[in-house]
């Protein structure tokens, strides 16, 4: 098959590295043969380490029968020479062609690496990590607050001079975070409605109160589920995208370039994303509410024999307009938090690609965490004011 004149000097499977040890009185004769290359020398490592000088005072190391020698083989030879010399023996190398001698000289440059830096004991390390983690949380909170101030300031500047707003960028992000999220948000909200209706009817049927499934679905979707599901999806979809986009620009030094040109990254990168999410998330929430109720209605029709008309009638009795607004008012707050964290983490990316991934993960975790914490705070707030 091979049409070339190429002939491999080193065969694909080199012959084994062989070592013969002979003794003539005070002379220890080591004769190496075969191929002493990376793939073969492992077998002779122990034998060379265990070499016994016996009563010998001189050593002759014969390389003339060595078929191939590479740095690994040369290193073994060199190491053995060194060990024998340290034991006070006189060593002589014979049969080394000039280029092999050159290789032997070369491997003498090796220096043992210092021991790897010690790591603290596991318990101490754990404590240290815990402390560091706690301090990091504090530092992040502080920086995030500073970033919040910066962003609000930029928002105010833009409110005074709307011409500063990047219109095209805003529309682009509106499409990305809003329009493109419709299928997934709709589907998940619909399924949540179905699940709520199914689980609710199962429990309520024990009291013969199936009709209250409608109340359950209506209140749960409008007050909590619609906005929460939407916010979590958006945090995973768009919050992470913000971090990845801005982070990649950071790695490419695009953000630095903006500074040198005199552009404020908060104006250029953060505001359009923030405003897009502030507009899109409430709209998505409304859409999710509709889809959630629809899911509940479909389930009610199929399983509970509640037709669509009675569903709507019951819903109207169960749900006030206030219920709708209670859920809806959370949407812009969540949007603000998600966009803020997504952009903040993106700008925190350092110069390597690895940190993009790290920061993206952090952005999603932090955003979802804060969304749920805020949701809990909202609940407390509502119960205090009695809504």
């Amino acid at each position, binding site marked *: 098959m091979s049409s070339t004149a190429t002939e491999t000097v080193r065969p694909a499977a080199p012959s084994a590295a062989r070592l013969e040890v002979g003794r003539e009185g005070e002379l220890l004769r080591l004769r190496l043969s075969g191929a002493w290359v*990376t793939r073969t020398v492992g077998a002779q490592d122990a034998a060379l380490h265990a070499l016994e000088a016996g009563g010998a005072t001189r050593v002759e190391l014969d390389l003339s029968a060595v078929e191939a020698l590479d*740095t690994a083989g040369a*290193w073994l030879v060199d190491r053995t020479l060194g060990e024998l010399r340290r034991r006070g023996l006189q060593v002589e190398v014979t049969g080394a062609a000039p280029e092999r001698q050159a*290789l032997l000289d070369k491997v003498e440059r090796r220096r043992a*690496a210092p021991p790897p830096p010690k790591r603290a004991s596991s318990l101490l390390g754990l404590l240290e990590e815990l402390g560091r983690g706690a301090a990091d949380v504090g530092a992040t909170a502080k920086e995030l607050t500073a970033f919040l101030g910066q962003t609000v300031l930029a928002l105010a500047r833009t409110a005074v001079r709307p011409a500063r707003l990047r219109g095209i960028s805003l529309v682009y992000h509106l499409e990305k975070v809003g329009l493109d999220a419709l299928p997934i948000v709709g589907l998940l909200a619909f399924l949540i409605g179905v699940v709520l209706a199914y689980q609710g009817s199962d429990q309520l049927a024990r009291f013969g109160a199936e009709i209250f499934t409608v109340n359950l679905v209506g209140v749960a979707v409008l007050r909590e589920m619609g906005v929460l599901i939407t916010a979590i999806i958006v945090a995973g979809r768009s919050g992470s995208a913000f971090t990845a986009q801005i982070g990649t620009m950071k790695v490419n030094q695009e953000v630095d370039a903006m500074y040198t040109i005199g552009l404020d990254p908060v104006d250029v990168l953060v505001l359009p994303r923030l405003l897009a999410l502030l507009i899109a998330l409430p709209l998505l929430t409304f859409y999710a509410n509709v889809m959630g109720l629809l899911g509940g209605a479909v389930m009610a029709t199929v399983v509970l024999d509640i037709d669509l008309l009675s569903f709507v009638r019951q819903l109207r009795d169960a749900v006030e307009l206030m219920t709708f607004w209670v859920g809806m008012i959370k949407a812009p707050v969540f949007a603000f938090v998600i966009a803020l964290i997504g952009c903040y983490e993106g700008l925190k990316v350092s110069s390597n690609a690895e940190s993009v991934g790290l920061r993206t993960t952090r952005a999603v975790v932090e955003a979802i965490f804060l969304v749920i914490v805020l949701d809990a705070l909202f609940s407390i707030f509502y119960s205090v004011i009695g809504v």
Partner: protein
Amino acid sequence: MSPVDGNGAGGGEDLVIRVQGLRTQFGRHVVHDNLDFSVRRGEVMGLVGGSGTGKSVLLRNIVGLMRPAAGTIDILGERIAAPGGGTADMALLRKRWGMLFQDGALFSSLTVAQNIEVPLAEHTDLPPALRREICELKVALVGLPPEAAHKVPSELSGGMRKRAGLARALALDPEILFLDEPTAGLDPIGAHQFDALLRDLQSALLLTVVMVTHDLDSLYAVCDRVSVLVDKRVKVGTIAELEREPDPWIQDYFLGPRGRAAASAKDALRGGTSGAHSGTGDAPQDTMQG
């Protein structure tokens, strides 16, 4: 020998790489067309060409990271690419060459020592202690200080990363070394040291080297022959031979101000005894102006 289209290398020569009739294309964009390229055992072959002429693509074809649209590629007598697929055992062949990527391409989560040990641990059954010793040897061979072994790539400078990448490429004592822009991004001193290191290792380890480069100084300092990618094909020869090539790009490349500066720098380094290069009498003035 006069510069010829790459296929001039024939018959009895000991060729470690032989590419014939290579064609590479991305969609409808043809990068190489009926390209021939060969490298002799023990030589340092430079690969140059304008941006977008497919230097790195050719390299990727040769090491099997890409599949050519047509043509055959033989390495070390094994056919790795042909119409209908190659016959070579790539796993076996990969142990016999090493590649240095542009920025080292070190595994970022591993230390330098662990990076070098990856191929050793994967492809040999060396005892761990010996593996560490060999790893330390490679660190020393590429001119890194011993304590660099425990650093992770992000703690190293660009030049050190390249050296560490070179150490990993040399881990298995390959017969062929592929280098993708080894001196790009290094300061002139670092680049010069890297060139010297390459030459040194090449002669000590009897390596065959193929290097893609933009660095004219590197070409003059290291390469035995140079292949120039023009018009989707390769023109090959020593630099002196290529200077007589009428192609305008090659003329510009070697006889432009930077080419002359690099040539005269090399002549100066060799105490003015110009073997490979002639007619550089007016070059120093060019350097001054450039």
